[in-house]
């Protein structure tokens, strides 16, 4: 699923959605939205928070170079190492290089969309290094060899009986079809991995430039396990995840969990700055941060499209999208789905590979209403549709010069009273020779664009005269 696609056949995929997907997805999204609604009811300043979050995210993007420099300086000062990856291949090589350098046999992974974007697990597999997903849903789909159907609950489409059978086959244990017992099995199996892994791999929900701090949120505790127990911690993070300072987090952390699952806050939020400072302290000995570009710096050139980089990956747009809720995540062809996928994938993969995605929307705008950072998703979809049709130009939409001057002429003709009066007297006189039985079959260019398709009605008389006649 996270293999970089060369072409996303959204129309084709959405015709062949497995029957269990929409029902499962709709159950999850309804649950999250219901809880979210309760949370919003408790937050009178919800709309102000959204605006503040949007402002902060946009401000950061527009000054991203200086925040990236600050981040690097701070992480380095804290004893970490920052690597810069221009693309997915560069990122894979850096992470693999670190794994080989440290003789890693087993790496434990926190759920990270950035690592799915670069298809890291596949690279580790090829290199003969075990990379185990530790988020329960990701662990399940990794065992099953499938991709995620939802950003937050990736295995929601699987029934407990399927999962029990999977555990029986792949883990060789007696597995009853009971979520609590299945979770206990996963806990035992993964505990051993957490304790013995030489390397922990994560992404980050936020990177705080002010202090070089990595912020990770989870409910399960696997985020803490992967970033505390192994001696080596490597984080792969998109350059768009930077926030200026801790104060910014006071806004963003209030929006993230509430938008994603309707919780007030996730069970765990870790704030990590560099490796452990002292001997005898727990935590990784070595910390490496791989900053991933992979097309994001290019996206910044597009004044409309770049708002996609404000995304904090809450998944709320998926939860409200009528399209997503009927086709699930696979139809979007890559690691990121729903409305955010429809505007991210075309900008990273190009409007050829992802040309169907901007059209995979009814433009209902439900996503725009819920996005915690106010990404103008429908605006970007329209913008990307134009880019698909006009071949990827990112110049702002400009009406053809002819239409522009036509509009200006029209404004004059209708706006200047004596011109208008003159026009109403002249026009019938000019058109009379062209009319036959009340219809004009052909007009000179550029008006022939109309008459090529249908006849133009001849003027029956002047409105003012008709009005005055009526009043009498």
């Amino acid at each position, binding site marked *: 699923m996270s293999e970089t696609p060369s072409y996303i056949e959204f129309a084709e995929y959405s015709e062949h959605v497995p029957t269990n997907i929409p029902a499962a997805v709709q159950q999850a999204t309804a649950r999250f939205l219901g809880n979210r609604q309760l949370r919003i009811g408790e937050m009178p300043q919800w709309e102000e928070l959204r605006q503040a979050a949007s402002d902060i995210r946009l401000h950061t993007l527009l000054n991203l*170079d*200086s925040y990236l420099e600050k981040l690097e300086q701070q992480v380095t000062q804290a004893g970490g190492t920052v690597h810069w990856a*221009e693309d997915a291949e560069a990122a894979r090589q850096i992470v693999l290089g670190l794994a080989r350098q440290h003789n890693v046999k087993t790496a434990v992974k926190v759920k990270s969309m950035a690592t799915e974007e670069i298809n890291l697990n596949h690279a580790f597999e090829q290199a003969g290094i075990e990379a185990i997903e530790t988020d329960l849903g990701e662990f399940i789909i990794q065992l099953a060899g499938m991709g995620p159907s939802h950003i937050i609950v990736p295995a929601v489409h699987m029934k*407990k009986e399927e999962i029990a059978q999977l555990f029986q086959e792949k883990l060789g244990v007696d597995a009853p079809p009971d979520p609590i017992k299945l979770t206990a099995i996963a*806990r035992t199996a993964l505990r051993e991995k957490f304790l013995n892994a030489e390397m922990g791999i994560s992404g980050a929900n936020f990177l705080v430039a002010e202090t070089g701090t990595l912020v990770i949120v989870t409910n399960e505790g696997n985020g803490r396990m992967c970033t505390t127990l192994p001696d080596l911690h490597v984080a792969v993070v998109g350059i768009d995840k930077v926030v200026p300072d801790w104060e910014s987090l*006071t806004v963003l952390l209030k929006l993230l969990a509430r938008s994603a699952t309707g919780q007030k*806050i996730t069970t*765990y939020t*870790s704030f990590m700055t560099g490796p452990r400072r002292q001997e005898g302290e727990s935590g990784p000995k070595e910390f490496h941060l791989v900053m991933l570009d992979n097309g994001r710096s290019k996206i910044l050139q597009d004044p409309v499209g770049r708002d996609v980089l404000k995304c904090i990956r809450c998944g709320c747009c998926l939860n409200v999208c009528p399209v997503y809720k009927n086709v699930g995540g696979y139809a979007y062809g890559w690691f990121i789905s729903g409305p955010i996928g429809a505007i991210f994938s075309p900008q990273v993969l190009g409007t050829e590979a992802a040309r169907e995605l901007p059209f995979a929307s009814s433009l209902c705008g439900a996503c725009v209403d819920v996005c915690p950072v106010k990404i103008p998703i429908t605006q970007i979809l329209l913008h990307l549709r134009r880019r698909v049709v006009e071949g990827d130009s990112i110049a702002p939409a400009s009406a053809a010069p002819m239409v522009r001057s036509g509009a200006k002429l029209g404004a004059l003709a209708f706006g200047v009273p004596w011109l208008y009066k003159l026009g109403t007297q002249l026009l019938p006189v000019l058109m009379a020779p062209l009319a036959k039985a009340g219809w004009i079959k052909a007009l000179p260019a550029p008006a022939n664009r109309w008459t090529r398709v249908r006849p133009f009605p001849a003027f029956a008389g002047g409105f003012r005269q008709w009005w005055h006649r009526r009043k009498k």
Partner: protein
Amino acid sequence: MKTSASNPVIENVRRSLGRQPGQATPARPPILPARQPGDQEAELDLLLKEINAVAGVAQRMDPTRLEAALADLVQSQNVRRACLWQTPFIQELQLTALLQRLGVEIIPAQAEKHVLATCDLGVTEVDFALPQTGTLALLSAPEKPRTVSLVPRVHLAVLRPQALGADLHQVFAEASRQPYLIFITGPSRTSDIELTLTIGVHGPQGLYVWAFA
């Protein structure tokens, strides 16, 4: 340190934005104002209520009831081994001795991770607490390892009222310069399997919070 001249990513970002190296950055947009806390008792009530709402077990405690409460916990949670932070307050409560009297084997908090993983109970203090969400915030240090609140099956956190913070602004103001901070809100959980809520995944299965006066 690498200069950004040798950093193609930052260079690409700058070029896309039309910015110059060293160009000034305007101030970050304003943040919403801080919360005014209620009185301490109300804040504590709110904290305990919120912790219980996320499947934690939170209650007020005093030193006279401590031994009985510990005995109860040890029995109901089948605690045979425990590790503890050694903070002045925990030492004052004599938790180590009390647990030993109950027949619990004490493992040093700095023990190697595999040994620590055999503990049933981890005891920590709470550095900051956020009443609105029932969140405990813990720092990290050699005598206060991160693993104690993470690896054992049960986490017991003792709280003094000084830890109560009004909101994130206050906690961040004090903790942002620290190399590590963890927010804990209830025991670990997941709904990944058929959206069925399951308590106890990779982090602790039980969170007990005892708030002292």
